[in-house]
């Protein structure tokens, strides 16, 4: 408690905390949380309460469970179908894209092949091609070969993640010692086995990062499935929710189901928020890798 020792505690590493700065940052945090808080509050209201009560105040009855049951039973339970579709697109898409990025990144960092420079130039150049500008050409091509309105039309474009390939390339070059690979080959392991058993385990941290970002971008994708799919049975959550939203607001004609739109929106983001919070370490290290190298 002596003043001298308490002053010594403030170093460059651990300076005095500033309340003003905390409050200012806190204000921005409020902006970040406001719509999420609104969503949580309103997911607990019945349709009648939603229309009549103040946005940030709770309704007269707590209807969250009723809403969830309704979400899963409305239109013969199509919401579960959308949820399963989303899981299918995310699991298959993120796994395949991460594996292909690891395979390609490993080849770029550790193997020689003809046309490597051209390949790099084209693939890295493609990172700056806007995804949505690409989606319409993709749709036109897929429609031409008759692949639209099938799950493949959503899955195949998600298999390719140029930025993931870049991250894997950078990470392989740094984290996988070439000597170890040579040793495995001298012991008689083939190239592919060396990759699977020696390199792949070492690539796990970068792999989780790429997996997580693919997970989010596929889970959140709206434009691609919107244009590729016509049959509601193949919709992912994002497109399905917007269909309900349109249904509820076609002036007067449709049933008003805002409580279902809001509750399904909440159910859509909960898995993502859990994934993000529990895998923090990975996306932060992945981003710093990208930031430092880029």
């Amino acid at each position: 408690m002596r003043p001298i020792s308490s002053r010594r505690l403030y170093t460059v590493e651990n300076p005095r905390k500033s309340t003003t700065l905390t409050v200012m940052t806190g204000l921005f945090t409020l902006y970040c949380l406001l719509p999420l808080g609104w969503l949580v509050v309103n997911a607990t209201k019945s349709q009648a309460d939603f229309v009549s009560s103040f946005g940030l105040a709770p309704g007269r009855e707590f209807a969250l469970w009723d809403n969830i049951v309704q979400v899963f039973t409305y239109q013969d339970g199509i919401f579960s179908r959308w949820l399963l579709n989303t899981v299918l697109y995310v699991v298959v898409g993120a796994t395949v894209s991460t594996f292909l990025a690891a395979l390609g990144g490993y080849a770029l960092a550790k193997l020689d092949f003809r046309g490597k420079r051209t390949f790099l130039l084209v693939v890295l150049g493609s990172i700056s091609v806007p995804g949505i500008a690409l989606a319409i050409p993709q749709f036109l091509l897929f429609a031409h070969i008759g692949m639209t309105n099938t799950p493949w039309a959503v899955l195949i474009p998600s298999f390719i993640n140029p930025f993931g390939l870049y991250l894997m390339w950078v990470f392989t070059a740094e984290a996988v010692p070439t000597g170890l690979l040579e040793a495995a080959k001298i012991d008689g392991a083939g190239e592919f086995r060396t990759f699977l058993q020696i390199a792949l385990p070492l690539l796990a941290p970068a792999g989780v990062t790429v997996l997580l970002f693919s997970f989010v971008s596929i889970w959140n994708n709206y434009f691609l499935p919107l244009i590729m799919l016509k049959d509601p049975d193949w919709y992912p959550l994002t497109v399905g929710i917007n269909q309900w939203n349109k249904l509820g607001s076609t002036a007067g004609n449709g049933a008003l189901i805002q409580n279902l739109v809001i509750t399904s929106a909440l159910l859509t983001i909960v898995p993502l928020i859990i994934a993000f919070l529990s895998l923090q370490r990975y996306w932060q290290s992945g981003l710093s890798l990208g930031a430092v190298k880029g």
Partner: protein
Amino acid sequence: MELTATAPPRSGRQAAPTAKRRKSQIGLAFIAPFGALFALVFIVPILYAAYLSFFQDKLVGGNTFVGLANYGKLFQDPQFWDGVGRVFRFTLVQVPIMLIFAMALALALDSMRLHGTKFLRVTIFLPYAVPAIVATLMWGFLLGIKYGLFGSLNEALGTDIDPFSPGTTLISIGVMVTWAFTGFNMLIFYAALKAVPRELYEAAAIDGANEFQIVRAIKLPALRGSLVVTIIFSIIGTFQMFNEPQILPSMVANSGVTTFYTPNLYAYNLAFTGSQQGYAAALALVMAAITIVVAYAVQIRGLRNASDQ
């Protein structure tokens, strides 16, 4: 990179050229799955779109080769340029505001002077995990005058503010986009700041530099590289704006969002409701070209400024 690692000398059992050739084939085998799919989802669609852009679907004569007519039409299409102008104006205002917020927040978090740094960092990043459709729904309800806060506000104050009128919709979209992406950009800046060796700050502090001098002389220059990256990502993002203007009209009656509000929305409506595929293909390609040129110009400028230092 692999030059630094020590490779054992290759044994003389195999003739060198054979070994090298075998090795090169294996490298190709590793890259082949990515390469083949990349061609299918990147290269072939662009070539096919370029091919389609030379055709028009006419009532008489069906699909006809029209040369560059679609491009000529596009350059004289006021609806296309209206959308291009709107995303340019949006980018000029929204991107600087968002990046200034992101940078200030990164500096605040990196200063270690905040209570609960970790909580604040995660919370600010959280909106990035929310799908654009959910974000638009939330903000659409929240800001709207029918069910949202502005309805209550107008009622309480007797005012008549509508965040989704033709004059204000773009501002509201700016509020949504800033909400969604500030945290992502903040983390990129934050990662760059974390890469600065801490001894530098200690040395500066010993030399008598205060916090603001450290920010100006060390931290801001350290952010230059990531600033270029975030500007490019943001430009690519805002130029292809689609989700918000596509979803909003179904939520609010008179939002002022037209079918050609942004170039991508226009391309979508041309391809799907107007079935003018050739014209939509031309539009998508021109918009991609504009985006790449602008992003490239930013990169060149950024690199030149960096080398001036």
